[in-house]
């Protein structure tokens, strides 16, 4: 963790809350804003630009963006600051941390700021799939911002070389592994190019969830108090993932790093990769070969969990600060700006209206890959999110990794994960 930024951020927040009452009435309301970066590209520059634009248009509010590391770092910082009494007013956190934030009493529902009809229309505008991880107990707790689904990227040159149609991505699991088999290049005992790659650090639960949805099972209920890690579909999913590495040998064995997966794709170490659509612009700028983007292949059905981060507004902030934070979040998710953000990063624009803007229409026409993640939303389900989310997720991820490294059979690993999740979640029912 970067301590300096953390200290600077907390210090800034502290100074603000102490200094605020002393400042004259017409001074702008200070709103500190913590955000993580989980994809490649100049995200910090883009966000700083937005904040500057907003501050110019709204002289009564001053947004101070603070880059706060990964999602995990950010929630650690935000909750530490919350416990010390002066959290950042606005933060982007994983939508799956919703229950944790509610249990810690750290955030306020967004509903209380929605007053006018325009506000209400704006709230209705988000894709319903993104609201699944933003609402519970009949309230809305987060505003969708950098949201995503998992998509499949493929290297068209590699497809051509392997005698496959470069315009046809795999549609089913069977095709996926058949293609991967052809795409895997072997030199004696060594592999110079793997057929496919599904990363297994950081977000292993997320990738497995995609496979599980495709195999016909969801991994948790909507209330966040029950998991279904040992359902047959989940076992089938993990078995498939493990077999690709250990039996079919079309996927690197063991654990594959989340962060270096795009680089592996650029370096042609893998011909296909599964990753967040948030990497779209990164791939577009860095891949030196023609590439395609597709919905994930299906088994029983198509599917992907949604992912990514929501805006959250801190409970321990003054009403003016909260109002300022709300206005910034609302400003940033207006169709034109949501479209711009989507073009600049590759994240899914959060509302239908954003895809109706001329800028976005033009972009999608020139770069059809940009519409894939939106089209996939039709098949998307909520991302795994429970009370004590980090702990439940760790139990799940540890066991997925145990299966991938070969130390546990998939069925046994998932049974262990389920038992652990049961133990953790029992008090919340």
């Amino acid at each position: 963790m970067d301590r300096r930024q953390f200290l600077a951020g907390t210090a800034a927040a502290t100074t603000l809350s102490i200094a605020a009452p002393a400042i004259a009435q017409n001074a702008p309301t200070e709103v500190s804003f913590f955000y993580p970066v989980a994809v490649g590209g100049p995200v910090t520059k883009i966000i700083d630009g937005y904040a500057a634009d907003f501050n110019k248009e709204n002289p009564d509010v001053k947004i101070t963006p603070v880059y706060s590391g990964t999602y995990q770092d950010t929630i650690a910082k935000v909750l530490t600051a919350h416990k010390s009494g002066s959290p950042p007013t606005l933060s982007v956190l994983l939508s799956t941390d919703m229950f944790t934030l509610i249990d810690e009493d750290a955030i306020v529902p967004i509903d209380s700021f929605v007053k006018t009809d325009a506000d209400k229309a704006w709230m209705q505008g988000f894709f319903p799939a993104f609201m699944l991880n933003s609402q519970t107990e009949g309230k809305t707790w987060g505003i969708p911002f950098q949201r995503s689904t998992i998509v499949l990227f493929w290297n068209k040159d590699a497809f051509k070389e392997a005698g496959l149609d470069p315009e046809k991505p795999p549609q089913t699991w069977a095709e996926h592994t058949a293609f991967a088999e052809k795409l895997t290049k072997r030199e004696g005992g060594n592999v110079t190019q793997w057929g496919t790659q599904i990363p297994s650090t950081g977000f292993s639960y997320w990738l497995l969830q995609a496979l599980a949805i495709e195999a016909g099972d969801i991994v948790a209920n909507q209330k966040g108090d029950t998991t279904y890690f040992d359902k047959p579909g989940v076992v089938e999913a993990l078995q498939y993932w493990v077999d690709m590495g250990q039996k079919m040998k079309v996927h690197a064995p063991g654990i594959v790093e989340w962060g270096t997966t795009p680089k592996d794709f650029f370096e042609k170490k893998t011909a296909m990769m599964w990753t967040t659509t948030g990497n779209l612009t990164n791939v577009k700028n860095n891949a030196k070969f023609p590439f395609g983007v597709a919905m994930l292949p299906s088994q029983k059905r198509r599917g992907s969990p949604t992912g990514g981060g929501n805006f959250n507004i801190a409970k321990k902030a003054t009403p003016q600060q909260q109002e300022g934070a709300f206005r910034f979040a609302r400003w940033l998710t207006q169709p034109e700006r949501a479209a711009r953000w989507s073009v600049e990063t590759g994240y899914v624009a959060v509302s239908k209206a954003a895809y109706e803007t001329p800028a976005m229409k033009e972009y999608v026409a020139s770069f059809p890959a940009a519409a894939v993640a939106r089209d996939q939303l039709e098949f998307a389900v909520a991302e795994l999110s429970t009370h004590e989310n980090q702990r439940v997720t760790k139990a799940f991820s540890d066991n997925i990794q145990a299966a991938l490294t070969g130390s546990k059979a998939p069925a046994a690993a998932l049974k262990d994960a389920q038992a652990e999740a049961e133990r953790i979640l029992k008090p919340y029912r």
Partner: protein
Amino acid sequence: MSDRFRSAIVGWLLLLPAMIFLVAFTHWPAVASLWESVMSTPKPRRPARFVGAANFEQIWADPIFWQSLTNNLWFALGTIPTSIALAMLMAVWVNDRLPGRTFARMAYFTPTILPMIAVANIWLFFFTPQYGLLEQILGALGFGATNWLGSKDTALWAVTVVAIWKEAGFFMIFYLAALQSISPTLAEAASLEGASRWTYFRRVQFPLLMPTTLFVLINAVINAFRMVDHIIVMTRGGPDNATSLLLFYIYQVGFSFWDTAYAAALTIVLLAMLALIAFIQYGWLERRVHYR
């Protein structure tokens, strides 16, 4: 006001800044941890209450704790002897009058002054499968591909190597200082007697370095148990807890799960273990160390 009273006040005032820091960052947290370890974790809807030894019973039954402890013991066993031996070797080496001595000293010491996070990121790249530095070297020598940080068998050793690389240069400085303080008359006497280089090291330098070795050993043990930053950057304890060390686990329980009471109990266990080791080192080893 008497002079004595005045000078006492001045004395305390001079001590005050240091004392504030010592109390705020050392004594108070230690006492607070002890207190929190017998309470439950406070939640907005459930305030903390006294639970006695419940947290410690949970530790006893926690497989990840035991794995972290085992990992940590292996990590200590892997880093301590190797880094001390390396440090001694390097110090004896650069203590001699050889050409480029200053450069060699600087090169050995460099790992110590680099920021840990940067170092870990560089090593992350060395260990990358397929196109990482290590893979390219081993590949050129005809070895197959290894997923160093992604395999349960190699991940812990991979982070151990980074720690040794980092520690050895630091300890070398202490040895170098100790070697410089050994009187040159001893070397002269040894050479007059016709002692070989090895005999001189074994019979003269090595025994005289023992106080330094004890000091370095204590530091090495503490460092082995307070390792956390490399782990966070390189593996986050994975795959499947294969590189989870005690302090990393405490961090995870405390700042990812926000189970502060359990984290406090784990901290107490770690402190108790370190205290025990220090007791053995000072009480038993020190008596065997030759001081001039």
